[in-house]
């Protein structure tokens, strides 16, 4: 196995620098925008600015957000809106989210930042047991729909065990919250504003690899993009690829390479993971007859498993090959050999060919 890995490793390391060039990709960038070219963290910043401006009952808080946050997403907001609306919290994630639930329960928009998705776990109980069930268990007397929890997620190339994880699947197992992940600056702004205004608590994961890297034209004004609506970002006829967030850039590269070999791929951005848009995925798979899902989180128990099961239920007779999953390996996120762990372009390309030639 070691030799196999080694072979693959050398391919992967060569490829590592090629993946994730989202900004230059024309089809991933949303069209119709005629704003300024900005990166993803600036788009997030704009969304927060608009949220604070358009609703006096909205608040932004978290570790270091008063200083702009470690990824600069909240730069300038404390100056503009005051320290009573944009403020630092102590270092206590469980407290941050619990506090946000209370704030939201009084009819406010509580926008909490967790510094890295890896640190959302101390707040897991508050999200799963308090936020998600508040409406249900009170028979709709109370809710914390104004709560949005933002957290940067995913690999950055060398983040190691605790600055790289993709914990979205844990939250997709929790009816009562929504999970949203954008792929690009324009998407990020519209989806974040939609999440903030959605009457349900939302966990919003931001692809931190793309904060600076992804640049596209983003409308300057206020706009939202619909939740629970997937988007076909590349049309094709041989195989359907489903992903979200930063992984779409990698999948897009694989689609381009596959096309050179005569395989036509349809690429879908799920955008909202729960409740997810089964219809769009189903319609696509009915057309192509094949499905590949790719995410950075470990394959076992990942959200890809859920998509796979649902689509098999709906399209069993139409499928021409087993559903393929190209995901993170079933190991903790490694410090060394990150390229081995990652669902890279070549792994996806291999799986596309395998599936099409099944």
């Amino acid at each position: 196995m070691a030799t196999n890995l080694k072979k693959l490793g050398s391919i992967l390391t060569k490829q590592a620098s090629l993946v994730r060039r989202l900004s230059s990709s024309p089809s991933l960038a949303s069209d119709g925008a005629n704003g300024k070219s900005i990166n993803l963290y600036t788009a997030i910043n704009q969304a927060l600015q608009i949220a604070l401006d358009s609703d006096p009952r909205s608040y932004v808080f978290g570790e270091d957000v008063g200083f702009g946050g470690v990824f600069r997403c909240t730069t300038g907001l404390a100056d503009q809106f005051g320290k009573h609306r944009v403020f630092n919290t102590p270092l206590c994630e469980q407290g941050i989210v619990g506090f946000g639930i209370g704030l939201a329960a009084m009819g406010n928009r509580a926008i909490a930042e967790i510094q890295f998705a890896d640190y959302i776990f101390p707040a897991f109980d508050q999200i799963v047991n308090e936020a998600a069930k508040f409406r249900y268990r009170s028979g709709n007397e109370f809710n914390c729909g104004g709560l949005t929890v933002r957290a940067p997620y995913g690999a950055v190339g060398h983040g190691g065990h605790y600055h790289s994880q993709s914990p979205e699947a844990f939250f997709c197992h929790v009816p009562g919250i929504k999970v949203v992940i954008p792929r690009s600056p324009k998407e990020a702004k519209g989806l974040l504003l939609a999440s903030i205004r959605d009457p349900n608590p939302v966990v919003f994961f931001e692809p931190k690899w793309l904060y600076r890297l992804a640049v596209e034209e983003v409308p300057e004004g206020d706009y939202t993009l619909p939740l629970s609506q997937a988007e076909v970002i590349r049309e094709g006829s041989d195989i359907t690829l489903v992903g979200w967030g930063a992984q779409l850039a990698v999948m897009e590269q694989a689609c381009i390479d596959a096309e050179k070999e005569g395989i036509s791929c349809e690429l879908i951005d799920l955008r909202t993971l729960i409740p997810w848009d089964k219809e769009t995925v189903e319609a696509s798979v009915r057309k192509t007859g094949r499905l590949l899902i790719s995410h950075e989180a470990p394959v076992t128990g990942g959200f890809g498993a859920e998509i796979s099961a649902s689509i098999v239920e709906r399209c069993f007779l139409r499928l021409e090959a087993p559903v393929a999953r190209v995901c993170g390996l079933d190991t903790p996120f490694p410090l060394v050999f990150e390229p081995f762990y990652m669902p890279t372009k070549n792994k996806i390309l291999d799986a596309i060919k395998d599936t099409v030639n099944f």
Partner: protein
Amino acid sequence: MSLTRRTTTSLLKPLTTTTSLLTRRPYSTDNSTPITVETSVPFTGHNCDPPSRSITTTPSELMTFFTDMSLMRRMEIAADSLYKSKLIRGFCHLYDGQEAVCIGMESAITKKDCIITAYRDHCIFLGRGGSLLESFAELMGRQDGCSRGKGGSMHFYKKDAGFYGGHGIVGAQVPLGCGLAFAQKYKKDESVTFAMYGDGAANQGQLFEALNMAALWDLPAILVCENNHFIVEGVEFVDVRERDPIERIRKLILAHDLATEKELKDIEKQARKQVDEAIAKAKESPMPDESELFTNVYRKGYGVEVDGMDAFAVKQACKFAKEHALKNGPIILEMDTYRYHGHSMSDPGSTYRTRDEISGVRQERDPIERIRKLILAHDLATEKELKDIEKLARKQVDEAIAKAKESPMPDESELFTNVYRKGYGVESFGADRKELRATLP
């Protein structure tokens, strides 16, 4: 690896330089001639009488402190440049400025005592007897690293010296420390656990849970808060002090000329007197019934505030705390310290503080300079000899780096090892579930 109290050995392996230096000094004939030093600032005790400010040391201990701290400082500076040249990946948090906490603590305890800390762990590892090679190899993700290259900067460990690492989640290590202390209490071997955390971590709920458990079960746990006054970008308690309600009222009173500063001071003195009298009376009141053990969890909120830039103050406090913990259960030590570098390598550390602030601390409170002055004052070595020790530290660090660079990367198969215990036969898959299929060893 000696498990005994380390007072004369030094991290620098060739001790010869140090000893030969000393042979030319009056103290050389007896390296253990006691010297008495005074801590720079008094301790503040919380619910306990603080330890004495005067501490007895020896020439050899002073020299060891200097040598070891110089080595730690050099190691961190070298790590800084290795990171900048991309030989260290991942996140890297440096300890320079805080060395006295580690050195003072080690000199007060044995390797039977346990230490557990967060991600700022390089020097703690060195203090526990870890080698430079293991440190640099780990930093660069090589096989010879203390965690076989799989942990990196934040995850150093040394089991044979009771060092339980190197934790990435802020605050998570402290309850673990209580578990260690419980196990130690069972062993009845008079050992304790030092659970270290930062001023930021002090905000985590887990910390209070841990302290409560430790108090409930009288665990020999010492919670060491390394208050370096920064939490990533500098959210500090000082913020709160600025908003002190009493200070606000004081300003108002003075502004409106309602009383003089002196009169206000007198009021405070009076308040203090009343409180002291009440305490004296309260002390005469009998202890609560045993059954109340579970109702008042802060019954045992003991603590000492320590100048964490003074290795001797730290040593004294740790000795005191260990005795206290073995007799009375947990105690908190708040070490007032300072980090020179930014929070991690992605923080330049210059946006939330001035250069003057940093150089002020370097001039007035630097833990190594403090020891240098003591050595010179007691004529234990010349300036030149101390410079030589620093040069030697530099040389050893450079040699260790060179060696570490030769250490190979871990084998690729290591990606799959240690997920579960060996021999469980758990399968792990590669991307295509065929080619890369492997059974975990």
